[in-house]
């Protein structure tokens, strides 16, 4: 979508202003020149207000603004006063934008009325979109329907990448959770990933619906399904947490590397910092050894625990057995069943002779005595096992060894940490911290945070494996139950088909994201390389999984975004934005406010050349201050190359366009 006209009526300092943006040359480049306070940013605000109903470029409307203060109503003051003196009840405010793309022409218009008594808005916004499709009748869409049309072509959530505000770089380069998710979602939206993502979500919803139906058919399935869903949810949550901790650790490492670079750049702190970092590496190594030593201790305890618990009882049992053995109180081996059999028959089983009564009585007494001692016989049988269980000869030695090892490692860690505390005091004392970047001051905090995150991540990884196994077992159980229940045949087939579909969609989504990331990295670096004046400094741009930018030094390979100047960061953010447009193929304009505010004169010509080239494929509207629109810029962005030029002037609370003719 490109803008062909913008009409502003009574909006802020604009009374009645009409901008034309015709494409009169091969470069769809349009320049607006205005001094500070005349209305460049409010021009961008008027576009946002028309399309989205808000003004993101006002101070206090951005999450990074330090204050939100009172602000004037959007109604132009002069128009307001005139309406009041004419006895009108309200003053109308509107912004109308005419756009065009391959599908046809569009007219977007938002109107509000400001009550002249209360100075507040009377009633709701009136928003309409008139669409003039090629070879078709005009369509009128109002209210929410109109907003849907806007969202289809210029989605609100990615508007920072259409309306680039050079003074709000934090929107592009800061690592707060909200910014990070906004950038990632923006890339997904522009690249169309959100469509396939939604399709995947809908397939999963459909599958859940079938699972519910299956569960209703079979109570067993219902139970297993619930357990499986819970297990899958736990696995998903842990995976997300591990991903988050991994990215936090990477981020901390990058920031620590940045801080090291700054500290190492100072001669009087370099050695101390090197030693400090070396000690930290050794401490990390010792911590791993400590984990292993503690794991060995746990194994040791498991091995000896039962033996130690039963030692006293086993010892007294052995003593009892040995005492009875010494007293010859142990019965000889006797064939009890043969004797009993003989007594029953009243004759000896061996010789067949009948047994006299008195001998029978003696035999019965013998049997009673014998059977009362049978428990002792049993104990004799397990005497050797009891002796083995009492063998704890190596116990004390091994215990001592393990505890000593743990103490040793802990002492070494403590000693190194003490040394590092001392080194840090030296770095702080000698490092001349005045003027250093915040990243340097927070190096210790970053290191502490990184250590905690590594520990947390380790714990999560251990439990994740167990949870995955549990989920897989439940899945197998579910499939077995499913196969056994004939009633579920049709639903089972649908489930299986959906499983395949979901897997394919996930695979395609991952491929697209990987491709986009690779292209974005290459394209961003390519454009940045053309824009930047330090040709031998920056070697590589990387985007992490959340599409956050990381910039790497050409020679050292170290991360160096934090050490870039404001101008370099601005050019990097702009390069990322243009790369996003190019890679996604998203056909929308790029409106840039204050594009070279931080870039010095000598480097502006290069900037202008690169942007001019970009404008051959896309509409670019740039709003400069007079100091920005310097001779270096004018030497490139001049008639007849650019398609339009407008200069704004301000007087008596009103901004007007002065001319529309090029004054370069």
């Amino acid at each position, binding site marked *: 979508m490109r803008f062909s006209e913008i009409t502003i009526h009574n909006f802020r300092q604009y009374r009645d202003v009409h901008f034309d943006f015709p494409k009169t040359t091969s470069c769809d480049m349009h320049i607006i020149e205005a001094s500070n306070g005349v209305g460049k940013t409010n021009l961008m605000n008027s576009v946002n207000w028309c399309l989205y109903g808000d003004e993101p470029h006002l101070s206090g409307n951005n999450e990074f603004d330090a204050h939100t203060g009172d602000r004037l109503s959007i109604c132009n003051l002069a128009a307001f006063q005139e309406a009041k003196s004419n006895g009108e009840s309200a003053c109308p405010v509107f912004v109308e934008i005419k756009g065009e793309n391959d599908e046809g022409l569009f007219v977007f218009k938002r109107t509000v009325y400001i009550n002249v008594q209360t100075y507040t808005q009377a009633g709701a916004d009136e928003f309409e979109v008139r669409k003039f499709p090629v070879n078709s009748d005009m369509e009128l869409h109002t209210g929410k329907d109109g907003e849907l049309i806007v969202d289809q072509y210029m989605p609100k959530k990615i508007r920072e990448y259409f309306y680039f505000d050079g003074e709000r770089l934090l929107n592009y380069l800061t690592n707060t959770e909200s910014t990070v998710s906004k950038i990632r979602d923006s890339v997904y939206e522009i690249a169309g990933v959100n469509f396939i993502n939604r399709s995947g979500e809908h397939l999963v919803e459909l599958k859940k619906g079938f699972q519910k139906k299956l569960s209703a058919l079979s109570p067993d399935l219902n139970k297993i399904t619930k357990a499986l869903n819970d297990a899958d949810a736990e696995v998903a949550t842990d995976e997300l947490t591990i991903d988050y901790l991994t990215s936090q650790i990477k981020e901390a490492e990058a920031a620590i590397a940045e801080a090291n670079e700054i500290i190492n750049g100072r001669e009087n702190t370099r050695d101390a910092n090197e030693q400090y970092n070396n000690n930290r590496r050794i401490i990390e190594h010792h911590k791993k050894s400590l984990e292993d030593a503690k794991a060995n201790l746990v194994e040791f305890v498991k091995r000896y625990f039962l033996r130690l618990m039963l030692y006293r009882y086993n010892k007294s049992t052995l003593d009892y057995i040995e005492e009875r053995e010494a007293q010859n109180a142990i019965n000889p081996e006797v064939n009890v069943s043969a004797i009993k059999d003989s007594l029953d028959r009243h004759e000896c089983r061996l010789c067949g002779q009948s047994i006299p009564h008195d001998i029978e009585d003696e035999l019965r007494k013998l049997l009673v005595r014998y059977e009362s001692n049978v428990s002792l016989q049993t104990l004799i049988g397990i005497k050797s096992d009891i002796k083995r269980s009492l063998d704890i000869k190596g116990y004390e030695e091994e215990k001592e060894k393990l505890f000593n090892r743990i103490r040793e490692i802990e002492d070494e860690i403590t000693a190194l940490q003490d040394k590092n505390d001392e080194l840090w005091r030296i770095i702080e004392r000698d490092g001349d911290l005045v003027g250093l970047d915040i990243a340097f001051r927070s190096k210790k905090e970053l290191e502490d945070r990184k250590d905690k995150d590594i520990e947390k991540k380790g714990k999560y990884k251990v439990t994740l494996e167990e949870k995955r196994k549990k989920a897989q077992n439940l899945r197998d159980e579910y499939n077995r139950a499913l196969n056994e229940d004939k009633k579920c045949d049709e639903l089972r087939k649908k489930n299986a088909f*959906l499983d395949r579909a979901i897997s*394919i969609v996930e695979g395609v989504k991952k491929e697209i994201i990987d*491709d986009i990331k690779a292209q974005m990295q290459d394209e961003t670096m390519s454009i940045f390389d053309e824009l930047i004046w330090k040709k031998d400094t920056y070697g590589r741009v990387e985007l992490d999984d959340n599409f956050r930018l990381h910039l790497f030094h050409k020679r050292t390979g170290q991360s160096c975004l934090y050490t870039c100047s404001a101008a370099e960061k601005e050019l990097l953010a702009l390069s990322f934005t243009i790369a996003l447009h190019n890679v996604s193929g998203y056909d929308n304009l790029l409106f840039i406010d204050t594009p070279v505010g931080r870039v010095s004169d000598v480097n502006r010509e290069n900037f202008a050349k690169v942007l001019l080239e970009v404008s051959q494929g896309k509409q670019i509207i740039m709003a400069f201050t007079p100091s920005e629109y310097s001779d270096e810029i004018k030497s490139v962005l001049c008639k007849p190359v650019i398609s339009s030029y407008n200069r704004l002037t301000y007087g008596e609370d009103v901004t007007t366009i002065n001319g529309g003719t090029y004054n370069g």
Partner: protein
Amino acid sequence: MSEIKNKTIEDKLKAATMNDAVMQDFLLAVVGNEYKTIQYSRVYNNELDKALKMLEGEVNGV
């Protein structure tokens, strides 16, 4: 005809389902639906039923 307004997505879906015409038709239809404002469940269910009927037809040699 595919309703997917993103050539990359369309090409990748076709490549991933090159040997499975039924799955290809299904995915192109349901992903294409995401570009419209039609309620997804009706379309998805219809396409799924269609796909399974075609699969049964293939199995039965129709």
